[in-house]
């Protein structure tokens, strides 16, 4: 009999399984649940992109691609980053195509972090950075972001946690779960702290196309002195509604990209070929599709923020991604209690904020990647729930 506890990697065993897995399983199986819990677009991949994927299959393009990705795709990525975000990268040396943004994050952290290195993590945030850091032997240092600051990372919070061991700052904006956005002036302030140090930045810009208001997303790589210390992670999942295609990319200084490419090639060879052909069509011809989806998200966002505030669940107006992050303190419940009771009482599923880091306690994540009618029904039920609580 093998005693598995003894033979398994301690690092793997010690990874905390997501505490709310059980809650999700219940929500996913319950009938008549109105969910506002998913983290992916409700739109289907635009038809021309799907068609490009099918066409590549019809032509029998079913081989591996070059490890770093198809050359024409890398060229289109370079064009896209320059066209939409004023970033200039050499498609030969500074861009690799990855399996979703997720794999880019993994390769980036593994290429930079040695055991004992500290990785700064603004929280609340996407849940993958911390376990990947732990697997490399790195040490996660949370940087709590506060509602008062619009859940942005402040230079003061950053400075307070920098030590001689600081290797990497993760910059996850526009942010999942808060919807916070770092505008140019906020990034300037962060850059001011980092310039002249050896601290690198992993800028996760997967929601870059989903910002609302007059100004577009600004990448920290565009701020003077930051390009050389920044790896930009982006992908097709959110902007083009292509989550299932598993395709993303990383762009950064060649010496880092070379190391990431090694890790990528040994781990998985190359990103899916069909997806890469489809992505060329996305980048070439689908700017308008992005705009259309963005417009829909924006209307839903306004509706949700307004209704939640009127209900007494105060939320600051999120400027990016497709989440709102209202405070539930007025109910006196913890975020997990709130979510469980809302699910059982009114069959509405939202995600406890505390699952995205301690500073998310007292908040819940509500996704608006749903139709307006769906959102309105969920809001009606949430209103009933608050009445039950006597609010």
């Amino acid at each position, binding site marked *: 009999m093998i005693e598995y506890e003894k033979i398994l990697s301690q690092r793997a065993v010690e990874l905390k399984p997501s505490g709310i897995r059980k809650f999700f399983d219940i929500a996913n199986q319950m009938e008549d649940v109105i*969910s506002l819990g998913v*983290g*992916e677009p409700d739109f289907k991949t635009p038809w021309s992109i799907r068609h490009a994927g099918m066409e590549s299959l019809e032509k029998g393009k079913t081989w591996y691609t070059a490890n770093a990705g198809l050359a024409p795709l890398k060229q289109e990525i370079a064009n896209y980053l320059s066209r939409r975000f004023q970033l200039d990268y050499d498609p030969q040396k500074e861009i690799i195509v990855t399996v979703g943004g997720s794999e880019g994050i993994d390769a980036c952290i593994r290429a930079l972090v040695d055991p004992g290195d500290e990785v700064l993590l603004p929280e609340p945030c996407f849940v993958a950075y911390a376990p990947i850091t732990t697997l490399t032997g790195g040490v996660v240092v949370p940087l709590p972001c506060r509602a008062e600051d619009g859940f942005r990372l402040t230079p003061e919070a950053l400075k307070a946690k920098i030590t001689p061991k600081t290797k990497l700052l993760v910059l996850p904006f526009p942010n999942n779960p808060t919807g916070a956005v770092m505008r140019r002036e906020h990034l300037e302030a962060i850059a001011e702290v980092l310039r002249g140090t050896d601290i690198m930045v992993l800028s996760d810009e997967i929601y870059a196309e989903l910002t609302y208001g007059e100004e577009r997303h600004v990448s920290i790589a565009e701020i003077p002195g930051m390009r050389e210390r920044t790896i930009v992670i982006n992908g097709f999942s959110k902007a083009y509604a292509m989550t299932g295609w598993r395709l993303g990319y990383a762009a950064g200084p060649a010496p880092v990209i070379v190391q990431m490419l090694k890790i990528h090639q040994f781990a998985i060879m190359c990103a899916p070929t069909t997806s890469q052909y489809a992505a060329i069509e996305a980048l070439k011809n689908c700017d308008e599709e992005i705009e259309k989806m963005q417009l829909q998200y924006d*209307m839903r966002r306004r509706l949700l923020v307004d209704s939640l505030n009127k209900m007494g669940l105060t939320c600051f107006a999120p400027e990016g991604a497709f989440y709102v992050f209202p405070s539930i303190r007025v109910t006196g419940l913890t975020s997990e209690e709130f979510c469980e009771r809302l699910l059982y009482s009114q069959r509405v599923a939202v995600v406890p904020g505390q699952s995205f880091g301690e500073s998310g306690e007292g908040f819940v994540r509500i996704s608006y990647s749903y139709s*307006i*009618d769906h959102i309105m029904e969920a809001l009606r039920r949430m209103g009933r729930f608050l009445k039950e609580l006597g609010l």
Partner: protein
Amino acid sequence: MDKLLNLLAENARYTNAQLAVMLGRTEDEVAVAIEEYEKTGVIRGYKALVNWDKTGEDKIFARIEIKVTPKKDFGFEEIARTIMEFEEVESVYLMSGGYDLALTVSGKNFKEVAMFVAHRLSPLDSVNSTATHFVLKKYKERGAILVEEEQDERRMTLL
């Protein structure tokens, strides 16, 4: 204010308050814009989109293609206007291609529609020929899905 029209075309029952929030306007602005659209005929009405198959009501639909002889000086105008007067006729379009007018006609049953074509449409002077196609099943109408919708396959996740 095209966004407003798009929203109303999607769902005419959004309240002005809801529309205002979604569009980032005031309720008054929305009310004024809608009134203007109604006055100028940009908005022609608000009707429920009924799926008659789900009711006990006997109702069938047919598409009728008509070839006509256009009248000197009036073109297709006169005959189109004559046909649109019949209350059985729900829509009348002038078409390019193989025929001239496309009609949607409704009736209680097959026979009623057949009688309408035989006794009212065909005898009209300018009508040369008609081709009647009965609707067997409606899948989608004016953007609304009438058959069972796809399930949302997305899962709850932290990602």
